[in-house]
């Protein structure tokens, strides 16, 4: 065994495969340690409310390598800004907050929004917003009363759009002299508020949504894609490993039992295998996913059940037929070893060299199966997985609208796990089956 491991390192493909698998395992551990399971699900399923300040469909940072000048998200907080308060008597105060920021990008921002954080007992504060562009023009945006956690989404205010004659992020950020240019420089949002109570408090922040976010970007619900990409790794690894272990080990045991007992046991196992080989596996999984449960564990169970009588039985059977006649098995019988003992301690270990490569090559097949089900809309309803990201991206037309990162990132991870395990498996096959070695 250790000799085989040593030999493994002579093959470049195996080393690369091991490196990839190591990377994926490290990523899994990192994901599980940094984001606890419950937290990951909360972030993934919690809805848009958790991700309000993220831009929608933002590219990951690495996309800046291909597309220069993607605007970043700018957030200006009132806590860090200049603020003047004037007491108007009778508990009424006038607050003026200036939220300045530099806009250096040559592309328009995606969206504009003002978040309010207000404290009051009965009378909510009243605010008026004014925008000052770098060339000094002041544009009145509107006035309204604000409640505790109000969000003023400028970009989706129809009245403002009508007043400005276009979407605010376009009108405010376009050079009136040269409409093809973006107005770069120091913009400023002026907020004039009236607080009607002594204990009232008004904090606010302006978010100028860009088109880049984090290392992984965001999806249509503003969710950070890093979460499904990270957490998809342990889920994919666990699913692939468990399914592969479950189906190969049971297949091996059944093949050995069939050969040992022979006659009708063997015949029955053979017939079941033949039926199972042409059962429409994926449609059956789809049936179960639609009618009963989409839980990844139920699907895993069915996958294992369908895999128990897999094509591997034929290979193992051929091998066991030879092993059964070996003298040491006869010796075991002679000293009175029971059937189960002979099968599990003497026959099955002989098949391990055949089992290991097959097992390793099977893992990616199951990883992709999980992704396939997710792409069909039958992924686990709560877990963040790679397949679900691809499904979201696909159903939202990511390829049409140019959000390539959305599909590419989970696809690359899937491909990596596919390649890693298969390269290792193929090499193991060569090492354990010497007839293939020179080829």
């Amino acid at each position, binding site marked *: 065994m250790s000799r085989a491991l040593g030999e493994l390192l002579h093959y470049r493909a195996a080393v690369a495969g091991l490196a990839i698998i190591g990377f994926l395992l490290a990523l899994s551990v990192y994901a599980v340690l940094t984001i606890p399971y419950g937290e990951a699900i909360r972030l993934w399923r919690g809805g848009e409310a958790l991700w309000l300040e993220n831009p929608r469909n933002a590219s990951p940072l690495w996309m800046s390598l291909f597309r220069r000048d993607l605007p970043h998200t700018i957030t200006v907080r009132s806590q860090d800004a200049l603020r003047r308060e004037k007491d108007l008597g009778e508990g009424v105060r006038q607050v003026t907050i200036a939220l300045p920021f530099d806009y250096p990008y040559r592309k328009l921002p995606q969206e504009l929004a003002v978040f309010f954080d207000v404290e009051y007992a009965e009378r909510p504060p009243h605010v008026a917003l004014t925008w000052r562009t770098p060339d000094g023009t002041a544009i009145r945006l509107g006035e309204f009363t604000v409640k505790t956690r109000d969000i003023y989404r400028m970009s989706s205010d129809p009245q403002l759009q009508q007043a400005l004659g276009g979407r605010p992020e376009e009108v405010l950020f376009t050079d009136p002299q040269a409409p093809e240019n973006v107005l770069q420089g120091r913009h400023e949002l002026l907020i004039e508020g009236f607080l009607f109570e002594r204990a009232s408090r008004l904090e606010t922040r302006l978010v100028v949504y860009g088109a880049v976010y984090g290392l992984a970007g965001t999806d249509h619900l503003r969710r950070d894609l890093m979460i499904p990409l990270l957490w998809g790794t342990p889920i994919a690894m666990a699913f692939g490993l468990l399914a592969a272990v479950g189906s190969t080990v049971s297949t091996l045991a059944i093949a050995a039992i069939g050969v040992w007992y022979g006659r009708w046991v063997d015949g029955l196992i053979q017939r079941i295998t033949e039926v199972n080989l042409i059962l429409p596996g994926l449609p059956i999984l789809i049936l179960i996913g639609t009618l009963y449960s989409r839980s990844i564990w139920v699907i895993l169970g069915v996958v294992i059940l369908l895999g128990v009588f897999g094509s591997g039985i034929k290979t193992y059977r051929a091998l066991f037929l030879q092993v059964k006649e070996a003298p040491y098995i006869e010796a075991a019988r002679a000293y009175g070893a029971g059937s189960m003992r002979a099968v599990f301690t003497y026959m099955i270990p002989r098949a391990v060299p055949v089992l290991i490569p097959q097992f390793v090559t099977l893992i990616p097949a199951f990883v992709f199966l999980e992704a396939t089900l997710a792409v069909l809309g039958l992924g686990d309803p709560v877990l963040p997985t790679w397949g679900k990201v691809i499904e979201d991206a696909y159903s939202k037309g990511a390829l*049409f609208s140019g959000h390539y990162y959305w*599909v590419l990132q989970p696809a690359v991870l899937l491909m990596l796990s596919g390649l890693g*395990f298969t390269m290792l498996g193929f090499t193991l096959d060569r090492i354990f089956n010497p007839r293939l070695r020179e080829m």
Partner: protein
Amino acid sequence: MAEALPLAPRRARSAPGTLARVVSYSATRLVALFLTVVVGVYLTILIANMGGYVDVIKRAEIREQVGISVSFDPVMQRLPVEERQKRIKELVAIEEENLGLNRPFLARSLVYLRESLLLRLGFAERMTSDTGSRLVRLIILNRLPPTLLLFVSAQLLLFIASVLMALSLSRRYGSALDQAVVALAPTSAAPAWFYGIFLILIFSALLRALPFGGMVDAPPPERAFAYALSVLRHMILPMAALFLTTIFLAVYSWRTFFLIFSSEDYVEVAKAKGLTSGAIERRYILRPTMPTIITSFALSLIGAWTGAIVLETVFNWPGLGRALFQAIGLYDTPVIVGATIIYAYLLAITVFVLDILYALIDPRVKVGIEERG
């Protein structure tokens, strides 16, 4: 059938009939495969009816049929509304009894089995066929030809291409091309739809050279030739995806297989006799390996059929797989059950067709040597 079997070899011995042997072999396989289909379909029904879904489908079907027959019956039309409702209820009850819906599940499931094997698949809940019919059978028959067109042509091309490439590689193994194929073999871990996404990204989204999906341009060209051309254009990417996912592994494993066989003694003898390499390949390498090749081809075809579901979805190909995908989205249970049954048939037919080929090629079947296992 069981009685005819022992007879067949004896007759073949008296009259040297390869045909008789092939027919008897095929007939045995046909029976075995039919039994397999029965088991598969029965399993589907069991799974689908664990929540009583098939019962619901069948009841809906009866109501629909009774409703149609009543609406075309002039005598019934003239009856007052309550009377007519009562008559409809009675008719439904009679039909349900005929179908055995009031019997225990075991008896019912056998009824469903018969109905499914005869492809009486009931009415779809939401989907319709091209002609507007809600019969699941018509919906599926509508969608079958595009699937067959795409997959049969792709698999045939794939088969021929990979065998030829494998042969030429086995002749000069160790060359750069050979090493490239060996290195690329692990890429087959990814299914076809996965490559489909990349192909769409490159050729449709970035280069704008080929359509994103679908089967013909919209609106479809009127002239037959233009229509065919348009279909071909739409077939390029899905076929390429199918190719990418299989070709390297297929070429790699068959090349290894050919290499093992070309080190056999009889090949050396043939070489020593001075036969051309073409003749050696045909007679001494391809002939003995063909049965194995056919078997592995059958297995890969089976994989491809079920893989079709996602590939067709990704490419918007209006085939059976996409119909199944749409049915999932609409929770259209009758269509899902029907499609599963059709897939069971498709897989069995695939295996059967290849089995006949196998019988024609495998010398053991031809000569009549019993093979065990």
